[in-house]
């Protein structure tokens, strides 16, 4: 990809990448750092990255950084999920219900939901970003949707 392609990718993807990182980790500073690193990496590897794959490359880099973050904080992440799973099944307001329901999901499932619903990526592209197979993407997506719906019902959230 050329410098012009990189500029286009930057304009198109920097805010999208930031949104993906922020909704995955919830930390603004960390999200900015991660997106910055990913864009720098994309510039450094612009010779080897095709223009069509720049999006996958950028989101893949962001996801790997996020995965590193979660791995470093594995006890905290685990504790937060256990807390969310153990939350009492009572009526929360909509924001709390959605937050708790999402917190019960594994990170990769949340990322898949994010990439599928918000960014609108195909299974193939999600598989490239997450470095997994198409089938795994479908399986995770299925489990994520079912679990999310179950939790939302349990927390009294009705989207209708």
């Amino acid at each position, binding site marked *: 990809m050329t410098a012009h392609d990189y500029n286009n990718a930057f304009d198109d993807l920097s805010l999208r990448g930031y949104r993906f990182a922020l909704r995955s980790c*919830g930390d603004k500073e960390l999200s900015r750092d991660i997106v910055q690193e990913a864009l720098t990496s994309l510039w450094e590897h612009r010779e080897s990255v095709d223009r069509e794959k720049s999006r996958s490359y950028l989101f893949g880099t962001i996801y790997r950084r996020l995965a590193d*973050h979660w791995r470093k*904080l594995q*006890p*905290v992440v685990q504790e937060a999920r256990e807390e969310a799973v153990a939350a009492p099944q009572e009526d929360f307001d909509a924001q709390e219900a959605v937050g708790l329901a999402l917190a019960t999901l594994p990170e990769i499932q949340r990322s898949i939901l994010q990439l599928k*619903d918000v960014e609108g990526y195909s299974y193939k592209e999600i598989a490239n970003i997450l470095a997994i197979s198409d*089938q795994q993407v479908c*399986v995770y997506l299925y489990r994520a*949707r*079912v679990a999310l719906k179950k939790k939302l019902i349990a927390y009294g959230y009705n989207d209708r």
Partner: protein
Amino acid sequence: MAITIDNYEYYLVQYLDGTLPEREAAEVEAFLESHPDLKEEMALFADSPKLESLPAAKVPQFSNPAARRTIVIGWRHYAAAACVLALFAAGLFLFPKQEEGPVVARMDTLPAVEEVETETSVSGVGIPSQRPKAAQPVLMAEALPETVEEERKEETVPSAWMESVATEEIIETTLLAENIEEEIRVDYETFKRIANYDPLASINEQSNGDALKNDAPEVKEQKQDLYLGRLAQPFLTVAAWIGNVRNEKNEFVNQLFGNI
């Protein structure tokens, strides 16, 4: 391709997306007929809201565990803080601030040394120092330098205190001179009385010797007493006693050696 309980999810997603070929879609429908619970689950999946349609959720934030850990301040912390405060207060109470501690020490030590030096060097006669001792610390405190280096420098240079010592020495020496005059006068009178000889009689006779010469011995003695004053009387008696002792000794010596 067989749909099993282990891989049905992928096919269900594809089936609901409508991307499965007809033959596989029929397999999925057959599979769902034999698994009614999965049919309900698939209904949940199909009914699950898209993430974008959900209200903005508070994303769980996983920050550093050290920063995330909150310190609950219990009674132990309060007790520790109270102990530290109590120790501090006790230290203030037991060891109050000694504002002029080093100055006091210097006032105690330094003038004493100077006193000894002046007494030995100046008099040699052994006259007790009559300096007002209460005034010294005040002078010392005024003239005391702040640091030790300056203090050492001050030792070589005559300070205000040293000047005051000098003036006191002058006063002492004048007192000493008066004493010596007095002593000389007492000695003279004693000698005159014991030896019954006045070396200055000729001079006195020239001036007013007639009065003394013509007086009776009693009147003469009275006049002498008046002249010497009451202060000289004890010295006179002591001197007379010494003279008597000497005379007795001389008599004893004369008796002793005279016989030989």
